[in-house]
C-alpha cells in the first residue's frame, strides 16, 4: 500500500500538485480541421470582397489577382457615400430604404411575436395547438412559392410598389420562427412569477410588461436580429414588388452596378461591404443574447 512507503503528508502534497492530463485526441484534431475549413469558407469571400473594393477597376481584373492591393484606393467608398455624386445619392437612397423597411419589419415582428409567443405558451384557448402548427407550417415551404399569391394579394390591396408590401411580406417569413422562439422562452419562465405579480397588485398585462417581458429580453433581441437580417438581405420580393427607382432596397439597388456599360467590380464590392456593416455591427453587439436565446430553450429544464 502506498501509505506504507510515504507519509500521508507527502501523498497529500503529491495529490495536490497532480494536474489533470490534457490529451489531444483524434476527435479534437478532426474538430479543429473542420472548424478551420468552415472559417475559411466564410471568411475568404469576405476578404476578397474587401480586397477588391480597395482596388482600381483595372487592378481588379488583373490575373493572377493580388490579395493585398499594391495601390489601395478609397475612391469607390467615397463615391458611394458622398451625397454630392449621382451614384452616392442613389446608394444612400437605397441604404435608407433598406434601413426603413428592415427596422419597420423588426418592430412589427417584435410587437406581434412577443404577445403571440406568450399567448401560445401560457394561455389555454380553443385551437391553440392548431394555430401553432399553422404558424410553423408556413416555414415548410420555400419563400418563392408565395411570390405570385402575395403579388396578387398586394395588387388587390393596391400595395404594389410600396414599402408596406415588403414589410408585410417579410413579416410572414420572420414571424413563425420568432413566435416559436419566444414561446420556448416563455415556457421556461415559471407561471408562479406571473401569479406572484398579480397577487402583489399587478393586472395580468402589468405582470407581463413589468415582470415577464424583462426576463425575455434575450429572446426579444434574438427575434429582432433575425427579423432584421431576413428583411435586410431579401432580394426576390423586393425586385418583384418595387418598380419605382427611388423605392428600391439595397439588394436590388446593387444590381445597378451590373447594368451600365461594364460591371464595376470594385464599386460593387464596396457597396456590398457597406451593406454588410449594419448586420455585422448589430450581430457583434447583440450576439451574446442571440446565443443565449438559441441555447436557453434546449438546456434549461
Amino acid at each position, binding site marked *: 500500500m502506498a501509505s506504507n512507503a510515504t507519509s500521508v503528508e507527502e501523498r497529500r502534497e503529491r495529490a495536490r500538485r497532480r494536474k489533470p492530463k490534457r490529451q489531444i485526441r483524434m476527435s479534437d484534431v478532426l474538430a479543429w480541421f473542420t472548424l478551420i475549413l468552415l472559417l475559411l469558407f466564410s471568411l475568404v469571400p469576405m476578404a476578397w470582397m474587401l480586397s477588391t473594393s480597395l482596388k482600381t477597376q483595372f487592378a481588379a481584373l488583373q490575373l493572377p489577382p493580388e490579395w493585398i492591393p499594391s495601390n489601395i484606393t478609397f475612391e469607390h467608398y467615397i463615391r458611394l457615400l458622398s451625397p454630392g455624386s449621382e451614384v452616392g445619392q442613389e446608394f444612400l437612397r437605397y441604404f435608407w430604404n433598406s434601413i426603413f423597411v428592415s427596422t419597420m419589419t423588426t418592430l412589427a415582428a417584435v410587437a406581434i411575436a412577443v404577445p403571440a409567443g406568450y399567448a401560445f405558451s401560457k394561455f389555454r384557448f380553443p385551437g391553440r395547438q392548431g394555430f401553432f402548427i399553422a404558424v410553423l407550417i408556413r416555414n415548410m415551404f420555400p419563400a418563392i412559392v408565395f411570390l405570385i399569391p402575395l403579388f396578387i394579394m398586394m395588387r388587390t390591396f393596391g400595395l404594389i410598389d410600396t414599402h408596406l408590401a415588403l414589410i408585410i411580406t417579410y413579416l410572414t417569413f420572420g414571424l413563425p420562427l420568432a413566435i416559436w422562439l419566444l414561446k420556448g422562452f416563455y415556457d421556461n419562465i415559471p407561471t408562479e412569477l406571473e401569479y*406572484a405579480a398579480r397577487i*402583489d397588485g399587478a393586472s395580468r398585462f402589468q405582470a407581463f410588461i413589468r415582470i415577464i417581458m424583462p426576463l425575455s429580453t434575450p429572446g426579444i433581441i434574438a427575434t429582432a436580429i433575425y427579423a432584421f437580417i431576413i428583411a435586410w438581405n431579401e432580394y426576390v420580393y423586393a425586385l418583384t414588388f418595387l418598380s419605382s427607382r427611388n423605392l428600391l432596397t439595397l439588394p436590388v439597388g446593387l444590381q445597378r452596378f451590373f447594368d451600365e456599360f461594364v460591371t464595376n467590380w470594385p464599386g460593387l464590392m464596396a457597396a456590398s461591404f457597406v451593406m454588410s456593416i449594419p448586420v455585422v455591427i448589430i450581430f457583434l453587439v447583440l450576439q451574446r443574447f442571440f446565443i443565449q436565446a438559441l441555447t436557453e430553450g434546449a438546456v434549461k429544464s
Partner: protein
Amino acid sequence: MAEVRLDGLIKYYDDVLAVDDVNLTIKDGDFVALLGPSGCGKTTTLNLIAGLIDLSDGEIWIGDRDVTDLDPKDRDIAMVFQNYALYPTKTVYNNLAFPLQMRKTPKNAIDERVRKTAEMLSITHLLDRLPRELSGGQQQRVALGRALVRNPRAFLMDEPLSNLDAKLRVQMRAELKRFHQTLNATMIYVTHDQLEAMTMADNIAVMSDGRVQQYGPPEEIFYDPANLFVAGFIGSPAMNFLHGEISTENGVTSVKGDPGWVYPLTPANAQKASHCTSGRIIIGARPANLILSREEHPGMIPGSVYTVEPTGDTTFVHITIGDQIYVAITDPFFRAEPDDPIWVDLEDDRIHIFDEATEEVLREDGLNSQSIHGKKTLQPA
C-alpha cells in the same frame, strides 16, 4: 386581517373534479393548514382563494366582501410560493418594494416599510443583491418578506418550506409560527407534511380527493379522526388497521379477525361497534397503543415478529398477523428474533372503531359531526 369563508367551492379541470364542494371558514387571525397527499386539491383550493384560477362553482368571502369574481390584485392577499417566485431581474429591495409600488404607496413610506420588513427577517444586508445571488434559505426569507411588507387581509402559503433542507425547515417553522402569533395574521398554509401542519396550525383541514375530510384543531385530528383516511394519513408510523367481524356471545361483544383471532371489546367500544351497519368493523390502533407480550394471554392477538428497528428513543417492532404487517412502538431495549411468536394487546380506551363499509368512525352516540357527508359549512370545534 379578516375571516376567509369558502362556500361550496367546486373546480373542474376539463372533466377532472379537482375540488369537490369545499366548505371552510378560516377565522380572523387563525392559522389553518390545508393538509393532504399530492393531488388532493389543496393547492388548487389555495389558488382559488387567491383568484389565480377560475372557480367552477361556489363563493369566496374575505371579510365582508364577496371576492369570487375579483382579480387577485383586488383581493388584498399575499402569497408565498413553493419555488419562491422572486422577480429575477429585481434586487431584494425592489422585490420587497414591488407590492407597495403597485399600490401607489408614497416613496418614503415604501422605503420605511421595506427596511422594517428586512430588519424583522434579518435580511437588511441582502437588500442590494439579486435573487440568484442568494442561498435557498435567504430566498425563502425574501419571499416571506414580500408577503409581510404590506398588511394584507390574509396570507396564503403554498408549501413554503418544502425546498429547504431539514435543519432550516425546523428553524423556519418556528419562525413562521412566531410571525403568525405576533402579527395575529389570518394564514392559510398548504402542506403535505403532517408535522408542519401539526406544529404550526390552529386548525387543520385534512383533504383528499378534492374534499375536506376533517377540519379541526391538531389534537382533534390526531386523537379523534373522523374517518379511515384521516386516521391513516395523520401519525407516523401510520395507524394500524385490523379488520374483523362483530360477534356477540354470552353478552360479550368481540371482534373476530380475518386470520382467526378473537378480540373482546370493552363495553364502550362495543357500544360504538353496535352502530355498525355492515357487521364488519376496522379497529384503528396507533403503534404506541399496541402492547406486546412474549407469553400468551387470553384476549390477545397472536402474531410473530417480522423485524425489529431500534431508533434510539424507542424501538419499532413490525409484527405479522395473518398476512398483514403491523407496527408497534415499544421500549428502547426490546429485542427479538424474526419469527419469534408474540402476542398483541390494545389500549382499549385509545383505539378507534370504523365501519368497514363506510370507512367512517363509529362513536358511542352514533353521531359523526365531522362526517364528510355533512354539507354545511364546517366550523372548527
